[in-house]
C-alpha cells in the first residue's frame, strides 16, 4: 500500500495541519516509508494469535468513584487566551 499526494492532503486536512506542496511530497515519501515497514510486519504469520491493543500485556487499573479534583478554574483560565463569565471563548462555531 502506498499513499498518493491526494491522500496526504486529505490526512493533513483531517489533522488540521497546513502543508505546502513541497512538504506534501516529502511527507508522502516519509509516510510510505512507514507503511513499507508495516508491510514488513504484516508478512509475519500471526494465525491464532489474538491481536493486542497495547504494547504492554497488562490490564487497566481502576480508580474508586470519588471526587478528588478541586475547582481550579481561576488558575486554568489565567493562561487561556480569552474568557468571560467563566467560559472559554473561541472563534464562532456554528454547525
Amino acid at each position, binding site marked *: 500500500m502506498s499513499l498518493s499526494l491526494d491522500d496526504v492532503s*486529505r490526512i493533513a486536512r483531517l489533522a488540521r495541519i497546513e502543508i505546502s506542496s513541497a512538504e506534501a511530497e516529502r511527507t508522502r515519501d516519509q509516510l510510505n516509508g512507514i507503511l513499507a515497514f508495516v508491510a514488513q510486519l504484516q508478512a509475519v504469520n500471526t494465525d491464532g494469535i489474538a491481536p493486542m491493543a*497495547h504494547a504492554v500485556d497488562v*490490564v487497566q487499573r481502576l480508580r474508586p468513584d470519588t471526587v478528588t479534583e478541586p475547582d481550579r*478554574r481561576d488558575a486554568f483560565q489565567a493562561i487561556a487566551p480569552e474568557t468571560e463569565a467563566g*467560559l472559554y471563548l473561541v472563534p464562532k462555531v456554528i454547525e
Partner: protein
Amino acid sequence: MNPWEVVIGLETHAQLQTKSKIFSGASTAFGAEPNRQACAVDIALPGVLPVLNREAVVCAIKFGLAIGAEIAPRSIFARKNYFYPDLPKGYQISQFEIPVVLGGGLTIHVGDREKYVHLTRAHLEEDAGKSLHEDFHGKTGIDLNRAGTPLLEIVTEPDMCSSAEAVAYAKSLHSLVTWIGICDGNMQEGSFRCDANVSVRKPDAPLGTRREIKNLNSFRFLQQAIDYEIQWQINEIEEGRKIQQATVLFDPDTGETRSMRSKEDAHDYRYFPDPDLLPLEIKPDWIAEIKAGLPELPQAMQARFQVDYGLSPYDAATLAVTRASAQFFEETVAAAGKDNAKTSANWVMGELAARLNRDEKEITTSPIAAVQLAGMIKRIADGTLSSKLAKEVFEALWNGEGQDADAIIEARGLKQMSDASAIEPIIDEVLSANPKSVEEFRAGKDKAFNALVGQIMKATKGKANPQQVNELLKKKLAG
C-alpha cells in the same frame, strides 16, 4: 395499503450515575457554574493521563446483565478523532472494535403486541463539553463541566418499523436504566438522549439509505421527528430524488428535520486504540458479584405479576414501568389481599395515576399511602362502597380529610345501602312517581328501565348497591 416499509435503529446515550467523571476525579454534579468542575484531565492540559472510574464499569456490567447480553472479558478503549472546541483533546475516548456489552435485547409492548428488539452493543465513552452560541462579542463560549461525564451508548439493530415502536423501545430502555439505578433518566438535563437512524424501502427491497436524527431529548420529539422524516423520505423518493446519507437535526418549533451542513470527511473518525488506556478486563467473579446485587428486573416482575396476581401483560407492564410504581402496587395488594389484586391494579393505574399526573406528583410522594388505598379497596370488595362512593372516599383520602377509608365512611355516612328492606320502599316511591316510565318499560322499552334505576340511585344519593337495585326493580316490575 402503505407500499413503504420503515426501518429504524436507535442509539441512546445514557449518562451514568457516578459521582466523578469517567477518566478524572472531577465532580459530575449537574448545574455548577461554568468550568468549576473541569479539571486538568477534562480540559486536556498537556501531560495528563486518564484513569478509568470503576463505578462506570459496574454500571455497564449491570446493564449488560439486565438485557441478557455478553459482557466482554476484555474490552478496548479507542480514540474517536474529530475537531470541535468543546472536545479539547481533539478526540473522544470511546470503544470501537471491542465494546464492553455485546448483544442482548429488550421486549417492548406496542398496544397488545409484544416485540423483541435486539441490541447490537453498548459501549462506555466520555461526554463532550457544551458550546454556547449566544453572543459573546461574536465568539462562542465553552463550558467543559460536562466533558468527561461517563456515558453508556446503547445501540439497537434496525429492528423497529414505526415511530410507535421506537418510542416503546425508548420508554422501555428508559425504565430499565432507571430501574437498575445506572442513569437518573432526566431527559431535560440531557441524561438520556436518543439518535434515530431512519430509512424507508419497498417490501423485500434492500435497505434504503438512512438519515440519522440527532439528539432527541423527549419521547414526543422522538415520535414527531421520526414521523416527519419518514414522510419526507417517501416524498423525496416518490418525486424521483435519491436519499443522501446525512445527519439531521429536529426543530421542535417547526416539527421538521433539516440536514446539518457537514463536509464529506466529517465522519472519518480514524479510530485507533488509545495508548493511554490498557485493556479493560472483567472477570467472571466480578460479574457474579454484581449479578447477585441486582434488583428483580422489570420483565421478571411483569411475568410474576401475571402469574401471581392474574394480571394481563399490559397491566403488568404498566405497573412495572418504574420500581416505585411496582412497589406501591405490591404494598397495596399486600394490605388489600391477593383476591383484590385486579382492583388494586385498576386503582393504581387509573384514579391514582391520573390524580398524580394532574397534580404533577410522583408516586413516591403520593398523598395516599398504599395501605390507605388498600383499606378503601377492601370496602369496595365487601360491598360497603360502590365505585362512585369509592371515588368520593379516594378524594377525601387524597385531601387528607381522614386517616383511613373506614373513618371517612363513618364520618360522612357513605355506606352503601345493601339492605333490601331499606331500598324497597324507595323503589316503590320512585315507581309511583314515574308511571310513564313504568308504562314504557312494559311496552318493551329497555331505556325506561335505566331511567328508573337512575331515579332510584338519585333518591338514595348514590348509596344504593346498583346491582341490588337492578334485581329488586326487575322483580317489582315483573310482579
